[in-house]
């Protein structure tokens, strides 16, 4: 089972390495969205510092969602998804492998690029580190929840826009605490522990429930 899990992760990473542009698009989308906000709101330092956590998280939500559309789409199109459903491996393990690979390619880069946001929005160093940590815990949750939506909208016309309608409301809790912790850290008075506990709780909950729901959704959609 573990072998199959590793196999799926490696497979998706190899595939992504052979089509690198897909990975880079997500990253650049994030950078562009983050860079556009100051042009719209004005570049006043106080304002930027205040909106930075929210902007970073909304950009992360959108970037992760855009990438999700492709999570199962190509496997669905060439029939490999059917084959995955028919392997003697538990489907949720394979789903977890795919989500992990997807997160490594689209979520992790966002975590690593976060200091750039800090730079653009005049965030103090502490807040930047907090933001990276929050993104590190939060973006996997986004990928996990989004996988359910991606599986449900598989092969539908206008699937991408539908996906956002289904999934964005479910992202709210992660965004509230993910952005909340960065704001709290920028002010520097409150205890951050509680935020991270809640975010980790979300991650554990998503890790347990999402692969099962995604597997069920895939079985429904592949029919």
């Amino acid at each position, binding site marked *: 089972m573990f072998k199959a899990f590793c196999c799926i992760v490696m497979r998706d990473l190899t595939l992504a390495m052979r089509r690198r542009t897909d990975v880079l698009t997500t990253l650049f989308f994030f950078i562009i969205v983050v860079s556009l906000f100051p042009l719209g709101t004005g570049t006043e330092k106080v304002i930027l510092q205040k909106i930075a956590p929210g902007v970073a998280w909304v950009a992360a939500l959108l970037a992760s969602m855009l990438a999700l559309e492709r999570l199962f789409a190509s496997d669905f199109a060439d*029939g*490999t998804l059917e084959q995955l459903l028919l*392997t003697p491996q538990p489907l949720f393990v394979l789903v977890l492998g795919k989500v992990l690979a997807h997160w490594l390619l689209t979520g992790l880069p966002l975590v690593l690029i976060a200091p750039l946001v800090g730079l653009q929005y005049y965030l103090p160093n502490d807040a930047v580190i907090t933001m990276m940590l929050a993104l590190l815990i939060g973006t996997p949750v986004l990928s996990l929840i989004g996988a359910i939506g991606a599986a449900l909208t598989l092969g539908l016309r206008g699937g991408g826009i539908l996906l956002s309608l289904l999934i964005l409301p479910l992202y709210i809790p992660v965004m509230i605490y993910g952005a909340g912790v960065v704001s709290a850290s920028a002010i520097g008075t409150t205890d951050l522990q509680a935020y991270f506990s809640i975010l980790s709780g979300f991650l554990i909950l998503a890790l347990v429930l999402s692969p099962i729901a995604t597997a069920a959704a895939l079985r429904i959609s592949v029919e």
Partner: protein
Amino acid sequence: MLEITNLACSRGDRQLFTGLNFSLKPGSLLYVEGRNGTGKSTLLRAICGLFLADSGEISWHGKSTRSLAEEYTQEVLYLGHHNGIKEDLTGLENLHISTILDGDDVTQDQLWGALKKMGLKGFEDLPTKVLSQGQKRRVALARLLLNSARLWILDEPFTALDVAAVDLLQSVISNHINNGGIVILTTHQGVALTSGQIQRLELGRKKSRHV
């Protein structure tokens, strides 16, 4: 042993078939016949568990395939209209991944050997997107040589294959049947398979005829 009792399937509004009954013993071959749109592919997908039938029971050695779950998928190899291979990966990688996922322990030599037997010598290391339709099909079919599944469900396995490959596939299928395997297949080509116990199922008549 595969047993189908009272199976009914529909697509949208259309009832494809109802009250379908048959059973297949080890060492037998079932041809599923019928015009386009009579539900051949749906039947095959229902048997391997991709499609949820409206009613009826599919059982493997006396147990419902739904309750067997992974124990049953271990025994099934399905090849549909899609080849189920990644175009960005090489034939070798594709084959390797599918054997790992199928839970079969296969050495590198066996992988190379299987591709060679399928007439893909020299193409093993190329991304499958540069191969022809027939060659892609061969990559997909190479799985048959390395798989331990006893029930093969093949939807139009002969499409896009040239004469030599058709012959090869026929012998692979006969071999499987002689070794006690079960094969269910659909085809539009008149292919002569004579080994084992052959059954025919014709869909799309007033009453599905089972000979």
